[in-house]
Structure formats: C-alpha cells, structure tokens
C-alpha cells in the first residue's frame, strides 16, 4: 500500500516527517539494550522477509498498491518499537533501490504501515490471545493491513482539499476520499486475509524454533 513519490503535498509530508522523527527517536531509545546476538539475526531475517513481501505489489486504482506487509510478524515477534524501526528501514530501501514508495512519502508510509500496523497487530493479539492464539495471530495480521490501508486512503484522499490551484485543479493526488476510501480499503480487506495466512505460517515457524514465548 505504498504511497508513491510525488503524490503528497509538502503540507502533508513535512509535518509527517516531524511526527515520524519523534516516533523514530522514541523507537530508537534503548535500541542498544534490546538488540543482542539472539535478536539481531531474527530481526534481520524478518526484515528481509518483509522487504521481499513488500516488493510483490499490484497497483490499485486509488493511487496506491496492494501487497502483503509482514509488519505483523515483526510486531508480534519483536514488539512495536523494533518493528516500526525495521519496517521504516524496509520502506527506505524499497524506495531508494526500487522506486517503490518514495522519499517524500516515506514518513507517511512508515507511520501508517510501520507504526499503526504494528500497534494494531500487537493490540489485537493481546486482546484476543486468551480466546485462541492462532485466531489472534490471524486477526492481528488482518488488522495490521486494514488499519494502515485506511490511513493511507485518508492521507491520499485529503490531497485535493489541501493542495489545489485557484480553479480547483489538484496539484498532487487528484482523487478525494469518496474514491480513495473504497478503492484502497476493499482490496486490502482481502489482502489482509492473505497476510493472516502467511503470518500464521511464520508464527508457527517461529514457535517451532522457539523464537517466541507463545
């Protein structure tokens, strides 16, 4: 669901960078204490997997793309902070090496997919874990796709309102919320189901190798 480069106005991406800067500083606090020779390999492997998943993308008419995120795996295995940092790095590498996403959209993409996606996954998992762990992982993964999808649709859909010429011609993204919300959200409801299956498989793999307490 990357927002590509050039579709967000400076009125959107500059404040988003300020917010993301605060979030990155928060996430990086105590990073040295969290990372050790056991967590680093797992985190690197999961980050590389999320990077690979994010590159298989299908364009969506709403101006973004549909693809699995892998952010739920990161969040469930390593927590919100590390997951946010790792996913931000994935987005940076994808934008610089493949032109997927972009440097202007990096902060919005990172906040939506990396932070909101991780928080949604962790909260859903904690809330539902007692009922059924597999279902909790699946719902957490689904939520980690749908909530960022909603945020991305909102960020794109407000562009014609905040950046346009005097005659109303848009300067950045051309479609309003009435188009972006259904165009982005409906495909991501189904992509979320695929993400749920994938995350459950990786979760079981991680459990088999005793990466997680669960």
């Amino acid at each position: 669901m990357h927002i590509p480069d050039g579709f967000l106005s400076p009125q959107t991406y500059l404040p988003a960078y300020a917010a993301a800067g605060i979030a990155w500083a928060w996430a990086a606090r105590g990073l040295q204490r969290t990372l050790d020779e056991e967590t680093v390999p797992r985190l690197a492997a999961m980050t590389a997997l999320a990077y690979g998943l994010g590159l298989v993308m299908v364009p969506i008419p709403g101006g973004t793309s549909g693809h699995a995120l892998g952010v739920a795996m990161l969040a469930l295995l390593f927590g919100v902070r590390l997951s946010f940092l790792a996913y931000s790095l994935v987005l940076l590498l994808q934008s610089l090496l493949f032109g997927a996403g972009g440097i202007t959209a990096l902060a919005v993409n990172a906040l939506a997919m990396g932070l909101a996606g991780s928080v949604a996954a962790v909260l859903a998992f904690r809330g539902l874990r007692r009922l059924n762990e597999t279902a909790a992982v699946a719902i957490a993964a689904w939520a980690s796709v749908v909530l960022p999808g909603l945020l991305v649709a909102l960020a794109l859909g407000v562009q014609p309102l905040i950046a346009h010429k005097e005659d109303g011609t848009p300067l950045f993204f051309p479609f309003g919320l009435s188009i972006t919300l259904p165009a982005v959200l409906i495909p991501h409801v189904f992509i979320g189901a695929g993400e749920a299956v994938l995350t459950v498989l990786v979760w079981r793999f991680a459990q088999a190798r005793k990466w997680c307490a669960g």
Partner: protein
Amino acid sequence: MKATHWLFAYLAAVVAVTLLHEPWLLAGFLAAALAASGAARWRILRRAVLAVLTFNLTVSLGYAAVSLWQGRFSAAYLLLVNLRVLLLVYLGFWFVARVNLLEACRFSPSLSFVVTLAAGQIEAFSRALRDFRLAFVSRNAAAPALAARARHAAAQAGHLLDKSVCMAAETALAMRSRGCFDDYTGLPPQHAVPQPVPLWRPHRSGAAPAAYKKP
C-alpha cells in the same frame, strides 16, 4: 563532495521539486539532471520510467476517466504530476547510483549499523532466491505442476528463513566479538588505556625512503 553532502543535497532537491508546480520548470530540472548524470543517464532514466510506469498509468487513466466524466479534465495536471514523479524517482536512482548509501549514513552509527545488517540480509536473500529458482528450473524438463510449485515454495521459504537466521547469527557473533553489543551506560568514565609502544615503526615521512644500497 562527501557522501553525506550528497545525501543532504538530494533531500533538498526532493523538497524543492515538490514546491514547483510548473510543468516546464520540472521538465527543465529533469533535463538538467539528465545532462549532469553522465553516461549512466539513459540506464537510470529507463529504470525510473519502468518503476513509475504502472502506478502513474493507473492514476493518470483513472484521473482522465473521472475528470472527463465530470468535465474538469486538465492535461496540464497530468503533465505536472507525471513529470514530478519521474523527476523524483530519477533523482533517487541517480543518488543511489552515484553515492554509497552506507557511506552516506555514516553520520549516524545506529543508522549505519541497521542499514549494513539489512542490506546484507537482503543481498543474501536475493542470491539464495535466484539459486533456488535456477535449481528448480534445471530439475524440471517440463513445466512443473501447481502442487510441485507449492511444495517447492514452502520448502524454499523454510530453508531461506533458516539460512538467513544462520547467516545473520554469524554476523551478530562477529559484531559481538568486536564489542558492538557491549553496553557502557552507567559505568564510570574510563581512563585512557596506555597503548603499548611499538618496538618498530615503519618509516612514514613525506620523502620516499632512500634506495637500498649495498654496504
């Protein structure tokens, strides 16, 4: 110019591009960037066009359909947005082609650390995936059935994760042996450790050493 200076110049250029709303100005900047990027310009341009083609085509066609239906079509907008996206992506690819990303991140040790680790993993993943694909192709004279493909994909995914973890574990142990995970916070400041005086120092003065003469 140092890699870090290139990084900040690139970031400034990106912000400047998004503040311009005249297609001819963006076209001029794109032409200037093409002229400045030397022999690699067409390769970078081709990569940039391919990277933006699908998304921009989708958005442009969607915009054309909706705006024509609403009677508000603007060709200038289509030109503006496509030029802006192409220029931004071109600048990004040019930056990566010209500057070593790891060197550019050197101003932040934590950033360099994470980028090194992730870039290494991604390279290892890409290589392993290519090896697997070639091996799978070479072992199937005819096109494999869907079930065989699924089994191959599952085995490949499991192996890749294990391999990746093993490789990253090696890297992490190497980093541990170099003191990367040592936490010095809360410890009293240490006195400088006296360095042993070398018994012999190589001659490093500006003048070239005199040629050896037979006694």
